[in-house]
């Protein structure tokens, strides 16, 4: 894909985030979509391309009252929206549509109009993982982490520091769910969820949504907000079974998607001003820093514990507070994208001064899928 040919011209989250007991999941989608439409100064009838995950494109297109000529229902977990951005950029470049709306929403806390997840007993997961007591992401996502720690010499204290540093960012963000400062002792004494991870190393469970609007770069200057260009993109999938990852000391899906996006963008790691790495659990930023090539995995724990990713650090990471402290409805990738767009527009609550390039890296399932989008505000 060519650089900077497509731009984000509309971006918004749901009006409320956190606990939203008065809206069903599809209405959360609509709330985010209408906010993004208003942000872009468009009408719903201007939308001719549509992408969403979990909810089907037909469900949401009907509810919104739109008739798209291009749809994408890619649903690979929380990074689906990174893949949607990549696919939408290609579709716009190919002339299949002009103005794409991407929506995410999840009634993750209130569970209104949300279909329960079900593992069929004759699926591979149902036969070869479910019988051994996996039960929701906290029992599955951390399964590789003890091996990762042993291979790379990562300590429990370093993994606690991930949560602490992100809480520092969240404290600057009025919309963050958790803002009070925390210490290593707070993290390591919080309730055990799935050893080695405790409550403060696991993501929040909230309600909310977000939406993006993309169009071609040559039209982008006509919109009310500063365009944010798509500089590079990458995606991959590995396996729906965490036990069957090729190795536990890195993620193959990360190692494919991340470098692909860097190559397409034509940038080096030194060019990155701002970084988002989807943090459903505290180990993910360490995998991301290593697998995206910022540094060897061995150095990732120390890098974060030494404060390099905190406010004022040399590599600002998860500046909204992340899934650990900002919000996490279940498929957090959309909120990482929203924060990258805010940083590139220069309007983030914890704005990184003069940030010109933002890398936004997502995970889907338990290392099952990955998508990376690199944004810039300079064409």
């Amino acid at each position: 894909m060519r650089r900077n040919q497509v731009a984000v011209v509309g971006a918004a989250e749901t009006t409320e985030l956190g606990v939203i007991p008065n809206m069903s999941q599809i209405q959360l989608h609509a709330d985010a979509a209408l906010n993004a439409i208003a942000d872009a100064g468009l009408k719903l009838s201007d939308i001719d391309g549509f992408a969403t995950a979990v909810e089907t494109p037909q469900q949401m297109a009907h509810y919104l009252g739109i008739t798209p000529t291009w749809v994408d229902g890619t649903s690979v977990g929380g990074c689906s929206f990174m893949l949607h951005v990549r696919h939408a950029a290609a579709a716009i470049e190919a002339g299949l549509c002009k103005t794409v709306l991407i929506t995410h929403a999840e009634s993750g806390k209130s569970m209104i109009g949300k279909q329960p997840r079900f593992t069929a007993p004759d699926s591979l997961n149902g036969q070869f993982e479910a019988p051994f007591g996996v039960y929701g992401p906290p029992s599955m996502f951390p399964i590789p982490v003890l091996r990762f720690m042993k291979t790379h010499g990562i300590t429990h204290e370093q993994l606690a520091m991930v949560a602490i540093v992100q809480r520092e960012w969240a404290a600057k963000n009025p919309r963050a769910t958790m803002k009070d400062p925390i210490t290593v002792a707070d993290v390591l004494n919080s309730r055990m969820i799935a050893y080695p991870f405790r409550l403060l190393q696991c993501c929040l469970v909230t309600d909310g949504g977000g939406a993006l609007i993309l169009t071609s770069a040559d039209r982008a200057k006509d919109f009310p907000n500063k365009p944010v260009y798509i500089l590079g993109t990458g995606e991959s999938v590995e396996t729906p079974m965490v036990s069957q990852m090729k190795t536990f000391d890195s993620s193959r899906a990360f190692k494919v998607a991340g470098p692909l996006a860097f190559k397409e963008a034509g940038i080096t790691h030194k060019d990155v001003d701002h970084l988002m790495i989807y943090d459903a659990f505290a180990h993910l930023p360490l995998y991301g820093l290593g697998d995206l090539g910022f540094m060897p995995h061995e150095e990732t724990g120390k890098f974060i514990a030494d404060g390099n990713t905190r406010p004022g650090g040399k590599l600002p990471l998860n500046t909204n507070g992340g899934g650990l402290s900002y919000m996490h409805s279940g498929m957090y990738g959309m909120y990482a994208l929203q924060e990258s767009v805010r940083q590139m527009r220069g309007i983030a609550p914890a704005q990184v001064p003069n940030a010109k390039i933002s890398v936004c890296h997502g995970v889907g399932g338990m290392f099952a899928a990955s998508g990376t989008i690199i944004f810039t505000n300079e064409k």
Partner: protein
Amino acid sequence: MAEPARAKPKPTPETQHFWDGTKAGELRLQRCDACANVYFPPRPFCPSCASRKVSVFKASGKGKLYSYVINHRPAAPGFTPPYAIAVVELDEGPRMMSNIIDCPQTPEALELDMPLEVAFEALDDKITLPLFRPAKG
């Protein structure tokens, strides 16, 4: 009302040999006749070279502890927390999820790379699960 039971696998045509094996007290894996790749979970072709010429064989049942969590909450139906959910690296190469029995479910007792051996636990007259215990000697 009966106690909630642990999730029970339902074999498919491609996996039936595996579940027939555990019922017979054997851990069965597959090996590619073309490239010698040993793989899991079961499928009637090699995921490395795509050959359909593959054979089922009885594995040694020996392996080592590759990684795990000790799950506290929420607990799956049929499990009493805290319980370890482990990934075992078999001597033949593939890894599989399982539980570790005859061993305290603690970080001190569950050492990465500790040698393990398979043990079979019947859920009913059709399904027997492959579990693992610390290897003797």
